[in-house]
């Protein structure tokens, strides 16, 4: 029997939630991807929490939050302790992405789901692999080989190939077959007939304009805004698609000698670009080539300035500029702050290069028509002063004292119970359990609070995993003087408004990452103050697809080419999933699965196999015929046994029985036409058939596109009157096949 394979989605099926799937290969559990959304919604991870301890290995495919965001949290809180595998860029850029998230969050909230240390420790035990490196798993998964392959989409993006006993399980989500400025296209198409293919339906309904046209529109929109004295905000991810945008802008600015400043603003922008510079091996051939020839590193940026602090941006003289800032969801990070500042100016442009995650501000703004006004929360971290500081210090002292007391108590107890050492251990465990319990409670509350703020005016049912798209009522009333304004909306509810507006002191204006990090990491007591306000959306909003994923049509043709024996669809709206499923059932293979969350599906191939040894005697009589990269022969053999009990094939002692003839070969009408033409036969296509010479016609019947179907053997009909030509053409036709 074949290798047993089960797939169990933990998150991200029938919707666009983050990706996390459990793939068991002969009982060895792979967690492929471990994503989280920009809200860090802990409820999404519930299915993961139930299986986390049983995971034997984690495979990461891309460096963005949706693919690896939950790793630190799962490692810390959910008991995930398996080794992690990723490519070097996914490891490095993923780490930076998580840093950026943490710093953005910490700046505006009491973020406590994970800390920088948690991120570090989670990423520490990542085993880095290079593309097409065959990694042999040892121990429990003996015999399983994993190998990352180029996926496109993001730098280091991976299509995972898990092989056991010659059967391939391929996990390919968010791939891009098109070659881009900095990335090569995916190699997914080079895999044929894998046992199982797990892929996403995210883009199944999407169609893209040509790259040239899209780039042109993108640059036109930006230039139009800049020339009209407006600012352009590009909400981007930390270290993923932004690289492509930077290259587009760099190239255009270089060509046209533009002077408008471009800023790349994230907490980790300079480290990002530094590392990206050393990842040339992972980028497209053209980038590698230009480096080999001219020593010009494509990411030696001449026009894009790297900023890691918003105050640096504020110190830039006024005037039109382009800012690329994280996060793409506008939920946090610099993009959020800049958005609030710029949104109400009609001259400005906010250009989204990717679809926002569900329920985020970005998604809301991408709706058509966009809302006229949105509520946002402005938060700031400020150091404690005066009474609060005193109160904090008191609290800290109290905690310290308590701890000291506890410690001394434990010590006492230990010394008391020096003979019964188990007891204190037990006590400690109870203590620990309590701690974790309370903290997880806190997380729950935390995320609740988040949701309330972010999806204003909308309470998701507690049972729903993914909140519905928020309905925002643009029912602004108008009177003779314009829109009716409720002054209360603009009154900050927090009394600390004065503090908030205080100029940011030197502490904040730190250098590089250390500055901002130090603020967050330093022990200076600080707190977060938030204000809610409604801003009018007056600036232009544009969404252009720079996601770098294959479009629906290409996905379908790639799937048809790969032609897996079994196909599992994940990640994508219910509609898209259903659409792709129906399409694949018809055109790709008869076994298409789209499981629900926590539904385990068995995709074990119903394949039988056994191994035999080919004896030298048999092989010396076998005449192979070469067909492409295959060599093929008919064998009739008798089964024998070798000394060590292996089955072996020996030549038959009696004459071989007759067997039904098979014609092996794949004939393409167009190719055959050329072949005939080269032989001097007059050929032309007429009414779906190939007309050869005067009277002979050749036609192919049956649905050739249905590759996966078992019944679809090519049917070729050769028709004609009795002529010499008929036999000549038949001979040519036979020459295209091999009949063993």
């Amino acid at each position, binding site marked *: 029997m074949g290798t047993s394979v089960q797939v169990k989605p933990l998150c991200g099926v029938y919707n666009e939630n983050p990706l996390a799937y459990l793939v068991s290969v002969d009982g060895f559990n792979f967690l492929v991807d471990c994503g989280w959304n920009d809200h860090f919604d802990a409820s999404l991870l519930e299915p993961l929490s139930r299986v986390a301890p049983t995971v034997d290995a984690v495979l990461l495919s891309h460096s963005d939050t949706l693919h690896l965001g939950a790793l630190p949290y799962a490692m810390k809180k959910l008991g995930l302790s398996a080794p992690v595998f990723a490519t070097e860029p996914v490891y490095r850029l993923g780490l930076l992405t998580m840093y950026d998230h943490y710093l953005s969050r910490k700046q505006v909230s009491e973020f406590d789901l994970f800390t920088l240390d948690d991120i570090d420790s989670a990423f520490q035990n990542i085993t880095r692999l290079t593309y097409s*490196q065959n990694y042999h798993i040892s121990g429990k998964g003996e015999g399983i080989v994993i190998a990352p392959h180029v996926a496109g989409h993001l730098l280091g993006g991976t299509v995972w190939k898990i092989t056991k006993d*010659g059967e391939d399980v391929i996990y390919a989500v968010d791939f891009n077959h098109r070659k881009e400025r900095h990335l090569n296209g995916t190699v997914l198409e080079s895999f044929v007939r894998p046992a199982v293919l797990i892929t996403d339906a995210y883009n199944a309904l999407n169609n893209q304009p040509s790259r040239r046209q899209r780039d042109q529109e993108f640059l036109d929109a930006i230039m139009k805004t800049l020339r009209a004295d407006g600012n352009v905000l590009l909400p981007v991810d930390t270290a993923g698609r932004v690289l492509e945008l930077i290259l587009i802008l760099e190239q255009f600015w270089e060509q046209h000698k533009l002077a408008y400043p471009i800023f790349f603003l994230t907490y980790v922008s300079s480290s990002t670009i530094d590392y990206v510079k050393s990842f040339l091996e992972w980028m497209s051939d053209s980038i590698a080539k230009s480096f*080999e020839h001219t020593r010009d590193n494509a990411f030696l940026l001449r026009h894009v300035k790297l900023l890691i602090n918003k105050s640096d941006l504020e110190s830039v003289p006024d005037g039109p500029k382009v800012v690329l800032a994280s996060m793409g969801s506008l939920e946090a990070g610099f993009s959020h702050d800049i958005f609030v500042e710029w949104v109400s100016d009609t001259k400005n442009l906010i250009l989204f290069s990717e679809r926002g995650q569900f329920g985020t501000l970005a998604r809301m703004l991408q709706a058509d028509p966009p809302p006229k006004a949105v509520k946002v929360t402005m938060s700031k971290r400020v150091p404690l002063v005066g009474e609060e500081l005193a109160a904090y210090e008191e609290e800290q002292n109290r905690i310290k004292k308590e701890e000291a007391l506890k410690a001394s108590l434990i010590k006492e107890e230990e010394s008391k119970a020096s003979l019964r050492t188990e007891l204190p251990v037990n006590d400690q465990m109870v203590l620990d359990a309590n701690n974790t319990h309370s903290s997880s409670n806190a997380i729950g509350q935390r995320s609740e609070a988040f949701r309330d703020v972010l999806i204003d005016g909308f309470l998701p049912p507690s049972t729903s995993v993914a909140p519905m798209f928020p309905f925002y009522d643009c029912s602004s009333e108008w009177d003779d003087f314009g829109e009716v304004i409720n002054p209360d909306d603009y009154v900050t509810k927090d009394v600390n408004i004065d503090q908030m507006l205080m100029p940011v002191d030197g502490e904040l204006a730190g250098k590089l990452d250390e500055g901002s990090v130090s603020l967050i990491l330093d022990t200076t007591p600080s707190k977060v103050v938030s204000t809610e306000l409604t801003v009018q959306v007056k600036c232009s909003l544009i969404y252009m697809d720079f996601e770098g994923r294959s479009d629906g049509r290409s996905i379908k043709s790639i799937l048809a080419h790969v032609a897996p024996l079994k196909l599992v669809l994940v990640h994508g709206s219910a509609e898209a999933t259903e659409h792709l499923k129906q399409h694949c059932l018809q055109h790709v293979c008869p076994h298409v699965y789209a499981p629900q969350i926590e539904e385990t599906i068995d995709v074990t191939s119903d394949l039988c196999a056994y191994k035999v040894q*080919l004896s030298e005697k048999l092989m010396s009589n076998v005449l192979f015929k070469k067909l492409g990269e295959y060599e093929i022969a008919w064998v009739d053999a*008798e*089964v024998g046994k070798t000394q060590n009990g292996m089955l072996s094939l020996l030549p038959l002692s009696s004459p071989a029985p007759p067997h039904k003839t098979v014609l092996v070969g794949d004939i393409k009408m167009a190719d055959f036409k050329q072949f005939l033409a080269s032989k001097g036969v007059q050929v032309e296509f007429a009414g779906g058939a190939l007309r050869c010479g005067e009277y002979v016609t050749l036609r192919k019947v049956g649905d050739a596109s249905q590759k996966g179907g078992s019944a679809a053997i090519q049917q*070729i009909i050769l028709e004609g009157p009795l002529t010499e030509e008929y036999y000549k053409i038949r001979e040519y036709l036979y020459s295209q096949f091999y009949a063993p």
Partner: protein
Amino acid sequence: MASTGQSLTSLKKREAATANNRDGDQLIITPLGAGNEVGRSCVYMSYKGKTVLFDCGIHPAYSGMAALPYFDEIDPSTIDVLLITHFHLDHAASLPYFLEKTTFKGRVFMTHATKAIYKLLLSDYVKVSKVSVEDMLFTEQDINNSMERIEVIDFHQTLEVNGIRFWCYTAGHVLGAAMFMVDIAGVRVLYTGDYSREEDRHLRAAELPQFSPDICIIESTYGVQLHQPRHIREKRFTDAIHSTVSQGGRVLIPAFALGRAQELLLILEEYWSNHRELENVPIYYASPLAKRCMAVYQTYINSMNERIRSQYANSNPFEFKHISPLKSIENFNDVGPSVVMASPGSLQSGLSRQLFDRWCSDKKNACVIPGYVIEGTPAKTIINEPKEVTLTNGLTAPLNMQVHYISFSAHADYAQTSTFLKELMPPNIILVHGEANEMGRLKQKLVSLFADRNTKIITPKNCQSVEMYFTSEKMAKTIGKLAEKVPEVGETVSGLLVKKGFTYQIMAPDDLRVFSQLSTANVTQRITVPYSGAFAVIKHRLKQIYESVESSTDEESGVPTLRVHGQVTVKQESENHISLHWTADPISDMVSDSIVALVLNANREMSKVVVESEPVGSEEEDARKAEKIVHALLVSLFGDVKFGENGKLVISVDGNIAHLDKQSGDVESENEGLKERVRMAFQRIRSAVKPIPLSA
């Protein structure tokens, strides 16, 4: 996957082997260079019709064609893959020649860093040697062309070309240096290139492959020598320099521009930062490549060790504070003590030689040779500290400067080699890249080391082939419908044997499309044959030939059909045509051919009458002709036939006379018997000559 553990190897037992093995099982390894010498590394390997060439270097001690490996020994067009381990001239410099000037049409692979530096280094080599060598092997343009053809491979990345699988491991030695593991049909060969198992300031140590190879082709540069520990060498190095410059002397460090030079610069930089008193002594890195190679070293940080990578997080460790680049000797302000690192390392020409000539007679100065020096080069000469040296201008000068030889070249020493081989346990070891004496000594020591094991150690000379036989078992996987039941001994298995690369699968024809990209096809043939006779005639005749002829009628058109041999359907399409319909396979094709022949035959028999009657021009002629025939036939029957009056024929047989009226056929004769016979004969003749009554 073929198994490697079980493979039996027999070395040079050709007489025993030839009987059982076919040519394909013979593995040949031939050093075309670097066999019992150092330089022009190039090792040829061939197995099962697949051919791999490792490295493509030149010999630095020779020039022109003499520096090339013995390419004449092989047919370059047969080579599938060429693998370059690292960028040093003795491993990569004949590549432009090989790519551009030979019939080689395979694929070339090297690591990213190697490719980037390869171009730098060779362009420089072309520029430098332009002055000294007339017969240039290749030009700058050839190098640029070769860049187009070189493909890159990342460490551990597994590639497959034409059934040859290969991947590479970190080799230490220099940036981007790789050891290649080649797997052909389950037989693995490891080619180490130059390697070092010692981690230094910027490079990782060579990895230990996780699979044991069947053959290990290993360098033996240092033979049985042992390196001093790294910190002692570094101390000797810095001490020698420190003492020279503090006495006001100048220090010349001849070194390869790239590779080990970076390691020395890192050492010097660190030493200078720790010794404030040296701050005023300048260090020059005199290489036209200095600046450009920096970009490469900055970029391929990921090929270096953790130490450098962690430093890189803060600042680029290759940005030196105390070391300044020096473009040429003209820019060099030679006053007071200084340290100059200059290329080339072997002092044949270039800046290092110019400085050597200038400084060699002053005993305050020093020359530190930091790497392996190749036999026959000036650097090798001065290591032996002769009294006098010959300058480039032909004059002789006393050699007064101190000469230190402190090896930093990252080659494995005996300790590293022996532990590496002990852990790897290859059953066959081939030594290359070492002077004959050193190699011999190493062989002796290894033989005694592996005495208890059946390890073969071979030291082939250039162009001397090593032949081995590997009878790897061929394993096939039976899959699909054919494998539903595992057969018992004695049962038969019939199916398609599909070979891809070196893996075999046996499957039922129906499964072919499921497990491979191949597909099967049915060709249905329909041929129409003109036939205007009765369909029943055909049926009748077919029945005479074939056992099975089933007749029925076509459901659609209602025309009669015949199914011959259960394979070919014959159908009467119209009055003038019948059609044959069958699915192509050799038997059906044959049956159909015979049917076609039969139909044509039936056609011809009928058409003969038509054809012959047509050319008859007038009726008269026709009649005359018929008369003649009738006459002739009657003559043959009865002998004496004469023309009588009224167009009657007079037939006389044995005295009996009969009169035959040709028009009516009436016969008059006295003899009844004759009368009757003539009448019958004439009737038959007439029906033969004019079968269809003309009146009809």
